[in-house]
């Protein structure tokens, strides 16, 4: 796509956006609510089409896509959008407005951020020019078409810019939008931030999630339930989403308890692999996965206190570590179990991760759980929930802890 074509699309969007803003905000919100109701409905044609096309486009197994969408979109409906708008935009003492145009640079292969990235600016009357992720051009195209089917005016406010990330001139034309939203790794975000002259630049860098189990979830039914929930959190989107835990911290666990937790998690991941098979793994990722597994096996063989539970075919791996040392996270269903002595030690272990933290699955702390959850939010977590709920964040969840809509809005008092 040439820079001129990008500029032409932005210009056309400006005009479409003006027409959209001429309509009442309630009408626009109602249209978007209807779109979310469609996407939330597993029987809708759009949802079925996405479920059919996404596996081939992204490498995820069909079962994983189906379950992942079912968990994530169950409550992302029109009513949730109305509540979100009422909470973030409902203060009559503050006037909020969108921008003339919003450029969205999408990344990755998980579809929910795409849906939200298109709907949120539109809720403010801002038209969107979206650069599809190179690894998923399906989701954005289907969402755009679904919006056009619901309302032609809404559809005219979404356009796609399928350009290469290395096409600097076209990228600069895209980044000339008044509002720019970028998804991607921190290096990409920093690069695009440096090049953008947007009045508003909203970054969604990479994040990670964790699980923390207290003594109440170190054994018995509580452990089995926590392990089953975490296995689903890990298995969905093959642990590539920022809400999939990459490590489990077992607070107050001795070696035997850590072994028990690792055993339970391994059994749950084996079960999850039957229900939601892991998808394709690219050679570089597979090499990292295999290398970390073999390295842990060697540490175990050398008596360094590690223990490895792994699927013979490499579909998942649980490493019970002896300490909290940070080690590579190969993703693709690879999780480490770290015993930590107490909450103070947990705080020390998590300190280097604060800046990257997204979600924490929490269980087994009894009456102290609420206080710990508050502490984790203070430490940077934007979602603290029970095991098994990480892959179903509410519509108003935002990885950076900002408002979903207010981060895209200009505001003025009065």
């Amino acid at each position, binding site marked *: 796509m040439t820079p001129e074509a990008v500029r032409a699309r932005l210009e056309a969007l400006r005009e479409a956006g003006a027409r959209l803003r001429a309509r009442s905000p309630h009408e626009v919100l109602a249209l978007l609510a209807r779109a979310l109701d469609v996407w939330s409905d597993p029987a809708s044609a759009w949802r079925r089409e996405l479920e059919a096309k996404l596996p081939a486009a992204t490498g995820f197994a069909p079962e994983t896509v189906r379950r992942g969408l079912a968990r994530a979109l169950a409550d992302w409906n029109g009513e949730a959008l109305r509540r979100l708008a009422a909470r973030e935009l409902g203060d009559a003492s503050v006037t909020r407005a969108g921008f003339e145009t919003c450029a969205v640079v999408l990344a*990755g292969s998980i579809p929910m951020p795409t849906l939200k990235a298109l709907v949120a600016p539109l809720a403010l009357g801002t038209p969107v020019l979206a650069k599809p992720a190179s690894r998923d051009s399906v989701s954005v195209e289907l969402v755009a078409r679904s919006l056009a089917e619901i309302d032609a005016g809404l559809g005219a406010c979404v356009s796609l810019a399928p350009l290469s990330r290395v096409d600097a001139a076209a990228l600069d034309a895209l980044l000339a939008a008044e509002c720019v939203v970028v998804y991607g790794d921190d290096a990409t975000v920093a690069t695009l931030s440096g090049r953008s002259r947007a009045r508003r630049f909203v970054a969604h860098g990479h994040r990670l999630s964790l699980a923390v189990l207290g003594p109440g979830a170190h054994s018995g039914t509580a452990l089995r339930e926590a392990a089953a929930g975490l296995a689903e959190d890990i298995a969905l989107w093959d642990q590539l989403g920022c809400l999939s835990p990459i490590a489990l911290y077992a607070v107050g666990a001795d070696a035997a308890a850590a072994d028990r937790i690792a055993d339970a998690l391994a059994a749950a991941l084996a079960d999850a692999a039957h229900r939601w098979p892991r998808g394709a793994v690219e050679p570089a990722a597979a090499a990292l996965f295999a290398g970390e597994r*073999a390295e842990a096996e060697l*540490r175990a063989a*050398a008596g360094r206190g590690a223990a490895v539970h792994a699927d013979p075919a490499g579909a998942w791996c649980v490493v019970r570590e002896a300490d909290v040392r940070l080690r590579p996270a190969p993703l693709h269903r690879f999780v480490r179990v770290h015993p930590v002595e107490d909450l103070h030690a947990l705080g020390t272990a998590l300190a280097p991760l604060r800046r990257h933290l997204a979600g924490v699955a929490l269980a087994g702390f009894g009456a102290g759980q609420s206080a710990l959850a508050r502490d984790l939010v203070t430490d940077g977590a934007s979602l603290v929930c029970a095991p098994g709920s990480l892959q179903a964040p509410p519509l108003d969840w935002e990885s950076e802890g900002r408002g979903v809509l207010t981060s895209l809005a200009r505001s003025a008092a009065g």
Partner: protein
Amino acid sequence: MTTGRGGDPARASLDADVLRWMRESTAWRGDDARFEELALRLFAWQFEHCAPYRRFCEGRGRTPRSLKRVGEIPPVPTGAFKELALTSFPLERTVHRFRTSGTSAGSRGVLHLDTLELYEAALLPSFRRGVLPDLGDGGRARMAVLAPSARELPESSLSHMFEVVLREHGDLASAYFVERGELDVERLLRFLDDACAAAEPVALCGTAFAFVHLLDALALRGRALTLPTGTRALETGGFKGRARVRPQRELYAEIEARLGIPAARIVNQYGMTELGSQFYDSVLAEPDAPRRKLAPPWTRVLIVDPLGGEPVPAGHTGSIVVQDLANTGSVFAVQTADLGVARGDGFEVIGREPGAEERGCSIALDELLGGAA
């Protein structure tokens, strides 16, 4: 001879047999039977004398008795050298350590050696074939090393390699041009100008990163040299952990433009601290054949499915596993962190696609540890 091997006759016999092969004038002749006989003996030795490796192999159901073919010998990932002293000899017999360069991933890997004899014997025929195939017996070449000397960095396997190469094949004018981490550009340019004046071809050898510094310096001065015919470049090391990265194709084009060395005379070396042997591009050894990396006959390079460990079909990408008879004191089979493709009788090392986008938004290796370091 620097050795701490002690008096184990089985090990001495293994070393002697491997050394004999490396030192034969026909060293580059492949010999599968010879390789496999030595590989099985070496695996059995290491299985017996390196306890963590033995338990690792047993965990995978691979023992000297159960092994059906040499390709089944379990490889150790290079990352393991960061935390474990993987030796087949008592650690107190260590006479030398090579450490990997620092990376954003934190700790450095260590190769403990109880002798340097195999390392040095392995590197010379490979270097000569890959970089100086036209050097007559007893001949010496003018070499400029764009890397620190072994005196400055004694634990760098690359610096040690250059020291041995200069000692054996360098002429009196050959020299190092990196000191205390800085490329001495002025001295290097005088060296290159002198070579031009004398029409003396040069072997310009160093890290890719040092070449970038040289090219930047030439660009800053608005200079472009045309080094004498017969000049060649050897670059190695990539850009791991460096802020500035230049794709190989761009680097070679710039070397050609600023130094007058055509891409067909630029050799990339693939090597790592954890291996006793190195692998060179074929461009000088076999100038009429496609560029690929050639493996010395006392090594085997396997391109395998990372998860299953089985060889991938020809032309497919897989993990590079190196089986290296020069590694008698550590482990014979090493799983590198690199991907490769088999190319005829050689192989090609491939990195990640430049600008490749992650599939997900969760943090993986370098970003996490880099940020936490």
